[in-house]
């Protein structure tokens, strides 16, 4: 199966190790992922802000870049939601582009979804002695309906102890522009998320969404140094 990596801009520019971890993980599972050097940003920030015409241009570029891949896999559920659910809507008045968007929507997957559902793998051969918890990011959980897959991957790690944190499915308060437009509300939300992580007693907070990681990770770095949040792909790759 030909797998193409969609490395979202947050990962590419801010947290490239997540990208390399995804690559390593997929290699380990016998894949030879390709990476199109022409990829940019899926346009979600523009779309969410209401700049639909401008978002269209990014969407069309994305479709041109990924249009022929058998499977497109990404470590960011929010960006996958954008492509899968919002591209067809965004391009609904341009039949040619719309049909390409609908067609692509059927081929794009979030990483854990691809590994567990498509490849049928839950044990990637990782082991970790310690306690972890998992934050259910909004667009992965409610946008894509993905919840069991990452938990299965975590449960299959040898030696790991998984604890569920309180309000695991509550939003962390990132919301892209929201975090800078309404910083006080965003802070109150991320503070709760960090508090629930701390009180869970877990050593590591795992998540599968780079946006949440920027937010929660940045909050922990400022307020609870030493407490760690990390992407599930990194956790699996580093401990495999």
């Amino acid at each position: 199966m030909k797998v193409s990596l969609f490395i979202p801009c947050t990962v590419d520019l801010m947290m490239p190790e997540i990208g390399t971890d995804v690559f390593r993980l997929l290699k380990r599972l016998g894949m030879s992922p390709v990476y199109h050097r022409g990829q940019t940003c899926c346009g979600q920030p523009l779309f969410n802000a209401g700049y639909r015409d401008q978002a269209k241009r990014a969407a069309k570029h994305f479709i041109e870049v990924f249009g022929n891949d058998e499977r497109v896999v990404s470590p960011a559920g929010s960006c996958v939601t954008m492509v899968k659910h919002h591209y067809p809507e965004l391009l609904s008045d341009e039949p040619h582009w719309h049909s390409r968007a609908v067609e692509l929507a059927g081929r794009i997957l979030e990483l854990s979804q691809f590994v567990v559902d498509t490849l049928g793998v839950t044990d990637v051969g990782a082991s970790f002695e310690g306690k972890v918890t998992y934050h259910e990011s909004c667009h992965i959980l409610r946008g894509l309906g993905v919840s069991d897959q990452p938990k299965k991957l975590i449960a299959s790690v040898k030696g790991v102890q998984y604890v569920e944190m309180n309000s695991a499915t509550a939003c962390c308060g990132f919301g892209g522009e929201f975090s800078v437009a309404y910083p006080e509300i965003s802070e109150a939300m991320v503070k709760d998320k960090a508090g629930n992580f701390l009180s869970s007693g877990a050593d590591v907070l795992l998540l599968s969404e780079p946006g949440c990681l920027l937010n929660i990770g940045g909050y922990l770095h400022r307020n609870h140094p030493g407490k760690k949040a990390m992407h599930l792909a990194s956790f699996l790759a580093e401990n495999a």
Partner: protein
Amino acid sequence: MHSRVDKFVETARRELKVELSQAFLLMLSLGAPIMRQIGLSSFPDPAAAEAYSRAVRAEAVDRLPELLEEFERNATARGVQVIWARDAAEANSAILDIAQRRGIRYVTKGKSLVTEEIGLNEHLVEGGVEVFETDLGEVITQLLSLPPFHLVGPALNVPPEEISAVFLKKGIISEPTTVPVELGKAARAYLREKFRHLDMGIVGVNVAVAETGTFINVENEGNIRLTKSSPKTLVAVMSLEKVVPTMADALHLVRMVCRNCTGQKLSSYVSMDTGPKKTGEIDGPEEVFIVIVDNGRSEIYRDPQARQILRCIRCGACANVCPVYAKIGGYPYGFAYTGPMGQVMNPLLLGIEACSDLYRACTLCGACSKICPAGVDHPSLILEYRAREIRLKNGGSADFRSRAGKALASLLSMVMGSSLLWRLGVKCARPVLNRFARGGYISGIPTGPQAWFGCRDLRAMPARTFHEQWQDLQAGSGREAS
């Protein structure tokens, strides 16, 4: 109702610091969803029950004009006088007129959001008719002149001390008390007197049934039933989307509204009225009016994207799961409708441009639409309003900020649309951003989105992006990339 939606940010900031609001909101956001789950689990198939209520509301809204006519026919046939009000002014003056013609000095009211929307109380008072709210929460907000804190529980956050003080001032109690039961009892005794001599009552409508002309009210205090059954004249005020085709549909919505609102299988009181007292009957109002309020809803009905908001059944479940509401409470929404349904309803009633904060202060987490028993997709509407705002602002009289916003968006769009420009942008951004990095993290920047750094750090941009590492990565693995 006077809108305070322009004060969203300052009200939210204030509420974030009010300990009592915060403690209450925490309790609500943790407790209410559990109660709802317990309530729904009493259905043999909760998913089917949700699908049914969503289907009922979808059908009702799509067949709205026809169902309203059927409702009017059947209600009129049973002796109800139906009044159509195009806007708030028409509704208010029709109701005041009913009161004045009968020499009514005061009315009691059941909790009704649409009457708050149209500002009925203010209008009646100005016209010389005193108004007594009878829902305990509404009594308290009315006495304290507070806006609603929650769609269903408008005074849930008011501490007993404050209630005691205002009850003392109004002579409802003679000795101060903070015992909730005592306060409730005092309010009950005070309201009983109003009911005893009542000539006209005003209520809202939870569901109206097209096939019978019946209107149904759901409540827990009995105040609506008393308001409906005590007076000679009963006026029901109904926003025009409340009608459903059949009694079976209506009863299912009653089941759903109770479970989603308080987790109850059924509220303590459910009353159904089909026309006034008939000859030979011993009680009930002698005349019944139903005021069907449009107030912009025909416009919403004609709007293919926004129409779905008319499906809302006002259960308030969306607020109970909204992470933003859980932090700021109902006051910032600044109007009759709070929480996610307010975020999508108020902009249509007050204008898109006046309500920017309502649809921007949202993380698009989707918790609201996931649980909505009426099938409203709030995030899609919020995204739609944002797009409309941008289109409106980029019209003729765009101010500097919106012109700058558009220019930035267009620049970003151009960059995202071109691999070359994108890579060039990345190369330029790194040194600019990393100038402020210490120990691999940035704790503040002198300009731009500084608000990020109020509570958070940002990792410095790495020396090499994934893109820049790719060649080495694939060389290491000995594979070709495209």
